[in-house]
């Protein structure tokens, strides 16, 4: 789904071999675990519950707007007595808000991705939206935030717009923008109590954030999704379009930061950070669709050999790839490679920490 790169087989082979060196040499001079710089701002659209805009240094830009609407909770059985039924079945007494909250459903979050030049029902776009949605819901806590009472809930619409043409696979950009937009999201303060029709405070200043700010901030934060590729033995984070075009395999890894607070010796509070891997998906690397190179020994025009020997040589070339001749990767990824990707992502003080520290520096309006 990322646009096809216009690189020749020779360029691809050169890029692949320079990236598989140790340490890898990337076209833009980054180290293997370095992210591209980005600028971000939040609260850009007063008409939404939360919004964010992120520009990457390669010029790609995304805007995310969050809108919340109240919706009546319809139970899946289509009957009036569903809640009572569930209650009696699970043996929970009335008034237990925690148990009620577990009835929260992931469907309350709706997500759309708009990419210029692609249809909105394109399989690739749907895949991106599902990936991001799954990562947000995977911690099991997100949907509970949308619960108002047993009869009503918030329906959250997350609209993701890619403003620029899709230069590289836009997954990390969209994920970081979504993360910031959710951190900036506020829902009106509830004034009513219990199961009555919800009433809200008119004062927007009093509206609490979906993800609480300063103070006792414990619990999971919105997830971020990183794109990691493996080229030879190297593992590269935040690949550019050219790097993706030679990747042997690509993996989207979603992480969720869980804040824990431990009291240390009375006053001192140490806010720790725990990273949790919540979802992983392989992405079909565009390298599989790159044109293969032809070794000069198999080139009829160059060697001028007869048909039969040429056929034989071509067959040999197919079986034993020659050094320096580009061939699209075949087969899958070894478990050891996946394992090292997972370890690199979850590494303490690694890339994920660096990204989260960077995002924390963004001024949340």
């Amino acid at each position, binding site marked *: 789904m990322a646009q096809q790169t216009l690189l020749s087989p020779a360029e691809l082979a050169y890029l692949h071999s320079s990236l598989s060196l140790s340490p890898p040499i990337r076209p833009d001079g980054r180290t293997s675990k370095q992210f591209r710089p980005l600028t971000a701002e939040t609260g850009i*659209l007063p*008409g*939404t519950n939360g*919004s964010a805009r992120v*520009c990457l*240094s*390669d*010029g*790609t*830009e995304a*805007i995310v*707007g*969050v*809108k919340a*609407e109240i919706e009546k909770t319809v139970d899946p059985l289509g009957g009036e007595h569903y809640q009572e039924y569930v209650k009696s079945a699970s043996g929970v007494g009335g008034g237990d808000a925690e148990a009620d909250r577990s009835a929260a459903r992931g469907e309350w979050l709706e997500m*759309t991705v*708009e990419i*210029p*030049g692609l*249809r*909105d029902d394109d399989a690739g776009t749907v895949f991106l939206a599902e990936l991001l949605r799954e990562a947000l819901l995977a911690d099991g806590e997100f949907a509970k935030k949308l619960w108002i009472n047993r009869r009503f809930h918030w329906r959250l*619409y997350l*609209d993701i*717009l890619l*403003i*620029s*043409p899709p*230069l590289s696979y836009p997954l990390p950009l969209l994920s970081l923008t979504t993360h910031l937009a959710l951190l900036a999201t506020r829902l009106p303060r509830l004034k009513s109590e219990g199961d009555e029709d919800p009433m809200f405070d008119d004062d927007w200043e009093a509206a609490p954030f979906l993800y609480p700010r300063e103070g006792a901030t414990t619990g999971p934060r919105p997830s971020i999704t990183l794109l990691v590729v493996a080229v030879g033995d190297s593992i590269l984070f935040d690949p550019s379009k050219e790097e993706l075009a030679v990747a042997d395999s690509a993996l989207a890894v979603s992480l969720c930061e869980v804040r824990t607070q431990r009291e240390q010796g009375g006053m001192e509070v140490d806010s720790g950070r725990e990273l949790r891997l919540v979802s992983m998906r392989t992405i079909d690397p565009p390298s599989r669709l790159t044109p293969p190179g032809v070794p000069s020994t198999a080139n009829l025009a160059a060697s001028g050999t007869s048909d039969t020997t040429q056929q034989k040589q071509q067959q040999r070339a197919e079986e034993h790839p020659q050094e320096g001749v580009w061939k699209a990767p075949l087969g899958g990824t070894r478990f050891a490679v996946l394992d090292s990707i997972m370890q690199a992502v979850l590494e303490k003080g690694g890339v994920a920490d660096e990204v989260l520290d960077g995002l924390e520096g963004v001024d949340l309006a």
Partner: protein
Amino acid sequence: MPLDTSTYSLALLRIDGRRWNDLRRLHAQIHTQDAADGSSYLEMGHTKVMCVVTGPAEPQAGQQKRGTGGGGQAGGQKDGASIVVNVVVAGFSSVDRKRRGRNDRRIQEMEITIQKALAANLHVHLFPHSTITVSLHVLSQDGSLLAALINATTLALIDAGIPMTDYITACTAGSTSSYAAGDDSADPLLDLNTQEEQELPYLTVATLGDSDKVAVLVCESRVQVSRLEGMLVVGVDGCRQMRRLLDGIVRQKGSKMIKEGAVQRSDMMAVSLED
């Protein structure tokens, strides 16, 4: 919420406190995005749009089928660049979230209107066999949407350096009382917001630069012929004001670029650097 027009005649102030010929606050930026050939951001009151221009570039396979441009021909035309306009209205742009598909008729109509206006006024014959892609994003809407889209497109095309005869600037004009009131002495209004658009007859007009040449005229509401001329005059005058504002933004950006050394100053430039 119905708009209360009865108070207008008392103080001659509109619902948001403007006089009949006041434009809303205009804020615009050009060159907002590094990767694009041309880009702009424009706010007219609470209507906010972004525009990204790509090209003139070699037409991409499959693009022509989707866009509403090129006069229906596939590939770049022989005698000039084809123009493709895509408008995306974000789900969060209006007060109530409403999702609009790519194939929404109203959006398609806006795309075609903009594409026709550009095709007539850009020097497309300089770029045969190529495509100019204009992609517009609506982030927030509060009336005069088509006008804002046209103005943003003009700025982005200037940023992309695509030669054109003059600025295409647009503006809406309305009338202070509804059609049913049958009030022939109704005052014309300039630059309507959503509330006024829903209640009052209005038209969108775009002109070419300082001239009176009309590039776009869209009127979808019912209005007495006698009122039309007044509305059109006010609209064209608004377009002139708009041109001055946009021109100011372009000049400001230009002098900033010269100061930063991004562009060499030459004697040919009619840009004053003192401010």
